């Protein structure tokens, strides 16, 4: 079984026509991709809840944790983009694994929140709302 280490993985987003590494990433979690299903049971059905596949594929948000640095270009870009509003989107992004495989996606919304862990350094969590499907390397 292959084991692919996480160190060396990168998150890139497009800034000025350029896929740019997001600096100071501590960790990130790829979005969950799932078939969207709907409960189709009615009140007079028997106890088993029935569901049907709607035909859509739903992709959740992507989140990344970075060391917070108010002077960093990454932080500046994220906050500027959020405050620009809808015209700043879509933004293309890519996750490059340490084995050089690439998963690609399009972002239609960003968020950022600072955190103060009990020990260590100030951090920020960047949230990315995606549109459509993430395209996996395999």
């Amino acid at each position, binding site marked *: 079984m292959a084991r692919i280490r996480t160190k060396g993985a990168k998150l890139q987003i497009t800034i000025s026509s350029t896929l740019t590494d997001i*600096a100071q990433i501590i960790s990130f979690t790829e979005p969950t991709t799932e078939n969207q299903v709907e409960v189709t049971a009615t009140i007079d059905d028997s106890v088993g809840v029935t569901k049907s596949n709607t035909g859509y594929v739903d992709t959740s948000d992507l989140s990344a944790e970075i060391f917070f640095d108010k002077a960093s270009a990454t932080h500046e870009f994220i906050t500027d983009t959020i405050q620009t509003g809808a015209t700043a989107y879509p933004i293309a992004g890519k996750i490059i694994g340490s084995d050089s495989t690439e998963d690609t996606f399009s972002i239609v919304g960003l968020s950022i929140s600072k955190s103060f862990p009990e020990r260590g350094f100030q951090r920020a969590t960047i949230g990315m709302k995606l549109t459509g499907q993430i395209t996996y390397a395999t």
Partner: protein
Amino acid sequence: MKAQYVLPTDRGPDTPAEHKHWDECRQKRAPKPWLPPWKPGDVIEHPECWRLVRFGICKPFDEECRQRAGMTDEQIAEAIEMQKAVRAGQLTGDPTVDAPDEGDDDE
């Protein structure tokens, strides 16, 4: 506003037509690259290209970009070195979060 690439960098979509092409390429899992990458020496004209100077990917190519980036030559050189560290996954200097040196196996 213009900036000149110092480091080779993949291209990302910018215009609606490029976004359409990007989506088509990735949905088909078309072979890379979807557009030619930026090479050192290439010049980009873009209203946000001053950010690439802050990221250490480009240097200013005109006075407008230099002023918007607001960096001295020393700061630009520092940003380029920092970008190299980012790309190597070794920005923090902390071995628990940084990528290992090439050839190292830290498992």
